[in-house]
């Protein structure tokens, strides 16, 4: 059984006034195995963000199911969704989403505090993560005092500290310079090698080229997928580039 199974996902948005409806996801199915590192690519408007919102249990699909460990998202009660999200999912966002009222350390602790963990345990959990991410010396600082790359690493730490089943990353390199991007992608690779499942939504080829598998979404459907296999990052990059060119030319599924 796969860790995450997405079957026949469909999402239709209705405009508030008038009956016009927009189909953001038509029919999306795929699965993610334990320990995988999957990148989902697509152009703006392809339905990436809608998909991620549904995976994050922030939104409900119009039709279809999302199973995590065989458990259906749709059957979780509204009141339990927040806890489910906290226990199973870790989030990394494009704009970091760190709270400026907290120090970096407190930002990382936030999900644990919400889960009612003791301070001693939180501290114990943070130590190895902080070391791995190289943020040990900025823990006491506030978000406005550190660079974008550091903020994103803090956000990664926040995502990892709950030991989630899957880390969901939404354009994690979108707001970073190239050096910070390289650093973050290297960290993602490393985290993945230690067994962490990662699902990343991006339209950066460079970011996607670090994944083990790349899914392409177009017009609300999974259009194509590439496995890394034995390829290096550079080779994968080339494959992604070719696929995107094909997509842009409007080619049909191979």
């Amino acid at each position: 059984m796969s860790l995450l199974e997405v079957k026949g996902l469909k999402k239709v948005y209705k405009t508030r006034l008038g009956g016009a409806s927009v189909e953001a996801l038509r029919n999306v199915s795929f699965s993610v195995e334990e320990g995988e590192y999957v990148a989902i690519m697509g152009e703006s408007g392809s339905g990436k963000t809608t998909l991620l919102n549904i995976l994050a249990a922030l939104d409900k699909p119009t039709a279809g199911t999302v199973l995590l460990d065989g458990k259906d998202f749709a059957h979780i009660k509204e009141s339990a969704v927040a806890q489910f999200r906290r226990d199973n999912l870790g989030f990394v966002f494009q704009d970091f989403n760190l709270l400026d009222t907290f120090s970096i350390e407190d930002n990382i602790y936030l999900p644990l505090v919400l889960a009612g963990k003791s301070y001693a345990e939180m501290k114990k959990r943070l130590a190895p993560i902080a070391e791995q991410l190289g943020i040990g010396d900025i823990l006491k600082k506030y978000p406005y005092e550190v660079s974008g790359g550091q903020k994103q690493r803090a956000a990664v730490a926040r995502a990892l500290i709950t030991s989630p089943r899957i880390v969901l990353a939404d354009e994690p390199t979108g707001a970073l310079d190239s050096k910070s991007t390289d650093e973050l992608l290297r960290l993602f690779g490393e985290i993945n090698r230690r067994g962490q499942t990662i699902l990343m939504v991006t339209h950066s080829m460079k970011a996607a080229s670090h994944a083990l598998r790349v899914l392409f979404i177009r017009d609300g459907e999974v259009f194509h997928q590439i496995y890394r296999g034995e390829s290096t990052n550079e080779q994968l990059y080339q494959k992604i580039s070719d696929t995107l060119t094909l997509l842009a030319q409007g080619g049909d599924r191979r």
Partner: protein
Amino acid sequence: MKTGYYSRLAVDGIRKNRRLYLPYLLTCVLMVAMFYILSYLSRASFMAHIGGGSGLAWVMHLGSFVIAVFSVFFLFYTNSFLIRRRKKEFGLFNILGMDKRSISRILFRESLIVALVALAFGLGVGIALSKMAELALVNLVEGDITFDFTIPKQSVLLSLVIYGALFLLIFLNAVRQVRFSKPIELMRSENFGEKPPKANWLFGLAGFALLGAAYYIAVSIENPIAALSWFFIAVLMVIAATYLIFIAGSVLLCRILQKNKGYYYNKKHFVSVSSMVYRMKRNGAGLASICILLTMVLVMISSTTCLYYGKEDSLKTRYPRDISVTVNFTQLTPENDGKIAALRETVDRLAGTYNADMLRHVDYREAEISGSLEEGGYLEVDVRLVDAVDFGKLVTVHFVPLEDYTRMYGKTLALGEGEAAAFGLKKVEIPESITIAGKSIRIVETLDALDVDGLNTAEMLTHIFLIVPDLDRALEGLLDLVDYNGNRMLQFGWHYAFDTDIEPAAQIRLVQEVYAAVRAEKDKDPSAIRSYYSASREADRQDFYSMYGGLFFLGLMLSIVFLVAAVLMIYYKQISEGYEDQSRFDIMQKVGMTKPDIRKSINSQMLTVFFLPIVFAVLHLAFAFPMIRKLLLLFNLNNVPLLIFTTAISILVFSAFYAVVYRITSNAYFSIVSDAKAE
């Protein structure tokens, strides 16, 4: 066509921001209406017909002035919230190619609409309510109701000119803010990064220490005169302490809580404590101002209410008898005693012509001397010898012959040579003996009550009355005392007062006749009688009522204005914070906080921000209570249950009003925050 376009944008701007504009408009209307009403009352025709009318008019005039000055500060303050919100919109217009001149044109039209609405509705409401306010005031001061309806031109003009100018200034200030900022700044003006506040131990602790000291002063002051002078010092200390505590103390407290890991890293406290720090940093000064405003209003309303409902008490304290007359002699000689007997006979005869029964006579002679009452009952009569004159120590000592006491009360006191029975006004502590110019009088008995001249009671200074067996013996050696002008320090007088059963109008006529009779007596022998006065409670009743009723009325009006102001300040704070909290609300939800959790956390913060000022205001009021009580003593009012009652009622009414506004504000806040989710 182009003009129409600007106007449409202006109307749109107001409509879209009605959550901010509506309360602002209402405040403007309220201010204009209040100003007009007070200005109208200061010219109302009924004032001319009642006693104390000119004083009453003056009080109303002063009130309108206070409203005008307050309006300037307050409308500028609330308008700054509006401008801050609008800046983003203007920045967008600017970037889309609208020059700042055009933006100013939109602003001008907006301001014009606001000004016209405020002036029209303000004057409309003011004129509509003016007669009602007048009737209320007439009723309070128990004057005669008139039924003519006037709209004084001066009041209308004054309101138009003052508030028109104020709106113009506010407009210019808004233009200035838009003109001198770059479009990108306009866009960003709402959210720029903020440093976390640092705990300032010095200021935080100083705040608590200062508050403690001020409270100590307030509760430890015994003497009303001292209370008067210390009151202002205590007020200043409390104001400073409130600012320090709200700004530095609150941050300090949160930081201390954060240091306690077990407490801080708890779901219940984590978010609240850390965001409180920011809230207090941004709002500390504002909340402190609100707290002081509320305290002011509470003190004002509870004391003026107490004064008003205690006016009969005050009147009776000031005028213990219906009719009174006091004649001051150069000396009490047997010859002057004869004059006193003659005067008494004249007064009784005059009362007889009205068929008045004379009841509860007060009739005594006295000699008085003033000085500073030092340690051990030593009265220093030469104030030049006292290092620093402490008004709390100034005392007038009256010597009253036992003979007169016996005549008044029909009983005698067992007093020996060099002994006296004492009675003190204003709760002065009576020493065991009083020594004047080396001459000691032992106090063997303290009297609980003594009917004395109401003028002494009304005075701020302390009076001690000594009943002595032999006046001449008691005054031996004191007759020669002179002040630095060479005037004799001892003063002599005769006080005669009584109640009657005749009509108030007759009483007033009677007292006028008594006055004429005393004047005739003085004219016969100008050297024996130094001065004289007569008083009628009924003649001065209307003056009293006018003054106290007027103060009460003004207290009510100002309370309404200040309370609305305080509440609106909080409303704007919460609303503007709501806009800032939208994104924070979003992040927390993404990280796994449930909606009820967030709601709870925000709720507790809002409750704190909302009720902290009123909690502190009530605390301030509680500690100010003993002082207010003593200050009211100076107004001849000593009715503690009444003061407790009026204070409690004021607090209750305030809290109820406050709670209603809290509901409205929190609903507006949540609708703003949840708007973010819908987008």
